[in-house]
């Protein structure tokens, strides 16, 4: 217990205090790494392995960073997964004609357009974000099916630079730097937090809340478009299916966003997202290395996330949580 208290004292330490959140996250990552390394030293945890885990986790991190803009304002979006599907397909189709430019512009512009539609409908129809995005998810899945012509879209091997290093890392880090800069150094960042804090007061103070929310949706889906580039390059193909299957793609990025929100009070949202997704990747792969079926991944992820949110939650006495 003394150790714990001493550790918590770090928070007020002049130099290390600023990095308290990061240190905490790094410790968590190390903890899980150590556990799995001890349990299966042969299959897990070599530098190559870690490098591999990092590359798969940054795909989700990019999406999570985009999603963060929305979640911070108290909104939600179920169509992230459908965006990845639709944007990937558009990107692949355009890549056939215009190469890398087609891939990048196709995915990102499609994502941005989706964000714009989401934001616009949310504002004009005045429906809660959770509900309007469920409806839009259904629509985008169908749209993806039609755009793909019912055919699996395969990305040409010559265009898969973003599916491996250094392409993927460069693109992902560009996205991280961009989202971090927007949050810290622009009005948008401040206004997003302001709206999340108290929308009514923010509105009275002259912030154009509707416009800000629209910007939030556009930013979110723009970066999900970038995630689509990384996703389809890594997976080399994308198939459009209906039946709300895209919902499954929502949750891994969402977990990264939770990390961001939980660690926001330490001032380290974006790094928290990146390290958080990395931790999840470690856990996933740790279990695979142990020979556990992939289904166990989900069990552990759910449990781990629950544990992390429970530990980092410090609600005020008498606060109301819905």
């Amino acid at each position, binding site marked *: 217990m003394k150790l714990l208290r001493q550790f918590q004292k770090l928070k007020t330490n002049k130099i290390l205090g600023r990095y308290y959140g990061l240190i905490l996250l790094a410790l968590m990552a190390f903890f899980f790494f150590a556990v799995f390394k001890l349990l299966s030293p042969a299959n897990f945890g070599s530098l190559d392995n870690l490098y591999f885990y990092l590359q798969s986790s940054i795909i989700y991190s990019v999406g999570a960073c985009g999603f963060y803009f929305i979640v911070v304002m108290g909104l939600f979006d179920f169509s992230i997964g459908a965006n990845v599907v639709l944007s990937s397909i558009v990107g692949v189709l355009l890549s056939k004609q215009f190469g890398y430019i087609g891939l990048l512009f196709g995915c990102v512009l499609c994502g941005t357009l989706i964000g714009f539609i989401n934001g616009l409908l949310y504002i004009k129809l005045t429906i809660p974000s959770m509900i309007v995005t469920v409806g839009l998810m259904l629509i985008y899945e169908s749209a993806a099916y039609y755009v793909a012509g019912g055919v699996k879209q395969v990305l040409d091997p010559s265009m898969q630079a973003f599916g491996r290093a250094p392409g993927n890392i460069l693109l992902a880090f560009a996205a991280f730097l961009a989202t971090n*800069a927007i949050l*810290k*150094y*622009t*009005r948008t*960042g*401040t206004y997003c*937090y*302001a709206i*999340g*804090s*108290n929308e009514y*007061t*923010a*509105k*009275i*103070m*002259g*912030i*154009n809340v509707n416009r800000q929310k629209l910007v939030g949706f556009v930013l979110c889906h723009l970066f999900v478009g970038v995630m689509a580039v990384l996703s389809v390059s890594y997976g080399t193909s994308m198939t459009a299916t209906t039946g709300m299957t895209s919902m499954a793609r929502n949750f891994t990025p969402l977990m990264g966003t939770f990390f961001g929100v939980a660690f926001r*009070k330490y001032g380290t949202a974006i790094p928290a997202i990146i390290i958080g997704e990395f931790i999840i990747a470690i856990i996933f792969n740790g279990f695979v290395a142990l020979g556990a079926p992939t289904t166990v991944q989900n069990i552990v992820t759910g449990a781990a996330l629950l544990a992390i949110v429970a530990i980092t939650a410090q609600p005020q*006495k*008498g606060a109301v949580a819905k």
Partner: protein
Amino acid sequence: MTDTFLTAEDVDKSFGITHAVNHVSLQVARGEIRGLIGENGSGKSTFCSLLCGIYGLDCGRFTLKGNELKIHNQVEANKQGISIIVQEMGTLAGLTVAENIFLGHEDRFIRYGIKHTAAMNREAQKLLDAYGFTHINATLMIDNFHFEDRKLIEIVKATYFKPEITIIDETTTALSQHGREELYKLMEATKADGRTIIFISHDLSEVIQHTDTISVLRDGMLIDTVQSDAVTEDDLKKLMVGRELNKQYYRTDYESAAGDEVLLEVRGVCVPGQIEDISFDLHKGEILGFGGLSECGMHELGKAVFGASFDRKGTVTLKGGVRIHAIPDAISHSIAYASKDRDNESIIVNSSIRDNIVLPSADDLADHRILHKKKLDRFAVEHAQGMSVKMTDIDQFVSDLSGGNKQKVVLARWLGKASDILVLDSPTRGIDVNVKADIYALMDNLRLQGKSIIMISEELQELLGMCDRIMIMKNGKINAEFSRSPALNEEDIIVKML
């Protein structure tokens, strides 16, 4: 003729069927401190909201220094020289102090879309120091500061750009004496600088003392504008209400009907950081008052007695030995509570009058756990009518009611529960004069019936008028006790509060 600075011409605003501001015209001079008073629903807050762009005008216009004002939000208002310090929380959690101060006006720190945070922080700290609030660090999250400091930050935010017109909307009620002093200093400095203040407050003595002139609104219309040094509180009350207050407001007797029977025993009650070692007895038929400065802990004490505090130590015991630990205990043993924060803690705003009244009595009204709608309706109607709640029907949502009627619904609920002990925290806050009189009459009736009341209030007059005993709290402890007597006056009490 003094140069007219600000003019309102035929300003009009309605919300649905409510005609909030009814063709009001007035003029304010340069460097004048104009008080604006009126009961709840008189239109004073709406009028100011129109002036600073929170609502749009239906009709009429505002003119400042000869130019018509076209304002759609607070940022535009600020740019045209109007600023408001609001009644509720005007700052946002999750942002730093500096971000709050410059919210909406970050332009000067932005170049090519990038916000220069360090420069912004430096500017903010300079301003805070200039106001004398050196203890506030501009780079910290505003969450680190308590309500009063946050209000001070809001004052900086609203006035640093030296607005021509500063509206202070019922801000003083929430501030401690220190905070109020700061505000009065600011008002004097503003006046000396040739700029104007519109000052809204329910505290008539404060308004008379700190303003040059006072405008009185009633039912959305301007009744009169008077010179502050030429009126008394009673004159103002008459103008506000429109007729002689011939009812006696408070109790007229000086005999306590309180017996020796102790209904409630409070011993050694502590809530960390709020109250310490509180002990007292509550007698049957007694009105026991608690007074003090806003942060003295009396509000927390009310919650503690009701079982609503977290981390409470000490005992609250009923006659017969039952200990009160939690709210359900308190209610089932006949204790009632009306909170100062009416809209969040007393009344369920988005719910019907019936549901609000019936809620704690649900178990009592059930036949073998089954509730019959007719029975509930009858119960609710009986008690709502008993309190003369102005409503369309029992299904009406409480959100449609005025502050006074909401409080009546709260009281109707506890009368329906037939509670023997009522803890009333600021029961007449923000309520118009007529309803206030009704509530005082009710309290008097209840004590004569043998019920006991703990009355917590920041208004000394009503404590003096209504209570058998008054406990004054200071810094979380009981500092003095006074008994009801015609000789007791405010000065005696104030000394013990400060």
